[in-house]
């Protein structure tokens, strides 16, 4: 067995990797933002919406959590195409990832809501807060703080899973690696390089979430302990 690694021809193409990493990061950020909004709304709908809405949100969560991401991506891709929409691979990828992570966010937020004792809500009501104010100040904010670690892990996982969107030729990191290995016949080196890029992106995201956590949750900043 002789393993000879030659990164030269692979690294020569570094601008391509940077482009890929940039697209992966864009996908991750967009899907995180919209997925979070979608998930938070569904969690609220599931908890306090009329029965039909609660069922709809529940059905969405189960459908997404029990089918492969790749299939979901194809469904969005071909589904929109057959409806006559011609969207870029990037848009379809961002959309599919949003729908996917939205379902996981819904579940995580629900766990957060469930972790707030009833007495807390009553205390809010008894102070004269409206239903909406109770929801925001007594339920949503502390629930968010509690599930923040789980949420951020989910978003990092999402970034890694965005690798699958190479299948619809979104030109993110993995697609770049695919292209470079077929161009240079240096498959192992290409994928080692791309793995290191993913590691770096994960690190950047975790660092970002850590910083954001300190900004969003003063209690965590001051006490350094999870809620």
């Amino acid at each position, binding site marked *: 067995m002789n393993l000879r690694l030659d990164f030269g021809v692979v690294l020569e193409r570094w601008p391509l990797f940077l482009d890929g990493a940039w697209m992966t990061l864009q996908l991750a950020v967009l899907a995180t933002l919209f997925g979070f909004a979608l998930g938070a709304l569904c969690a609220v709908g599931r908890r306090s919406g009329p029965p039909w809405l609660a069922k709809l949100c529940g059905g969405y969560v189960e459908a997404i959590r029990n089918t492969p991401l790749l299939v979901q991506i194809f469904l969005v891709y071909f589904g929109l195409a057959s409806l006559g929409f011609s969207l870029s691979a990037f848009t379809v990828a961002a959309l599919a990832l949003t729908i996917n992570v939205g379902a996981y966010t819904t579940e995580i937020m629900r766990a957060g809501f469930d972790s707030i*004792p009833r*007495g*807390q809500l*009553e*205390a*809010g*009501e*008894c*102070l*004269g*807060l*409206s239903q909406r*104010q109770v929801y925001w*100040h*007594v339920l949503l*904010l*502390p629930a968010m*703080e509690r599930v923040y670690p789980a949420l951020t892990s989910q978003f990092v996982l999402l970034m890694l899973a965005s690798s699958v969107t190479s299948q619809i030729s979104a030109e993110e990191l993995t697609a770049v690696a695919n292209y470079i290995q077929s161009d240079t016949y240096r498959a192992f080196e290409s994928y080692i390089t791309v793995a290191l890029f993913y590691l770096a992106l994960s690190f950047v995201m975790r660092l970002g979430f850590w910083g954001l956590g300190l900004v969003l*949750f003063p*209690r965590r900043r*001051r*006490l350094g302990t999870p*809620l």
Partner: protein
Amino acid sequence: MSQPLPSSAAPVVSLRDVHKSFGSLKVLDGVSFEVPRGEVMAIIGRSGSGKSTALRCIDRLETIESGEIIVCGHRVSDPKLPLRALRLDVGIVFQSYNLFPHLTIEENICLAPVTVKGKRRAEARETARRVLGQVGLGDKLDSYPEQLSGGQQQRAAIARSLAMEPQVMLFDEVTSALDPELTGEVLRVIEQLAAGGMTMVMVTHEMGFARRVADRIVFMHQGKVWETGPAGILDAPETAELRQFVGSGL
């Protein structure tokens, strides 16, 4: 705090023939009592006799099947009652403190004055400082609930209610979760409130405290007001049930 009511002679809290069930379980079976302004009423009785339920009905945390509840001129038994108006007049403190864990003590206290009453932050902070001083926690403004002892948390919860300047305060076994030494510090705060003329209804297991502070005792048994009167009834009970209850050393 001394804002005049429509009729100043009317009781602050009045229950008339209140009935309430949970499923087939009759919890309040024709409960009536009145609390005049400035008086302290202690509700005592065995576990499950309906004390907490009666208290919760006063603040409309439970709805009733029949009877009438009027609190500070609000017809609580009316299903269409605007809850916000009621809750501005009623403060309630629970056994489990229920401070908001993600907020500092100051933020806990300022939340309702700012969001409900629309007070300005600086003004609300001033109020927070005042009520915390009142309960002896002037130095805990910036602490988080978990950094306080149980007794301190309970006093902070009382301060949070006081910041809304309620007409009447309800206490539901606020010392039951506390060690005896911490119980004392909370009871002292309630006693000061009583001395200051606050109208109060408290469910308590502290007989000595009830005897000392309450103007009137309501002994509940099987969902009924079994015996009621001035604190003296604890020393000379008329009913066998109250005699037994007091005798059991609870």
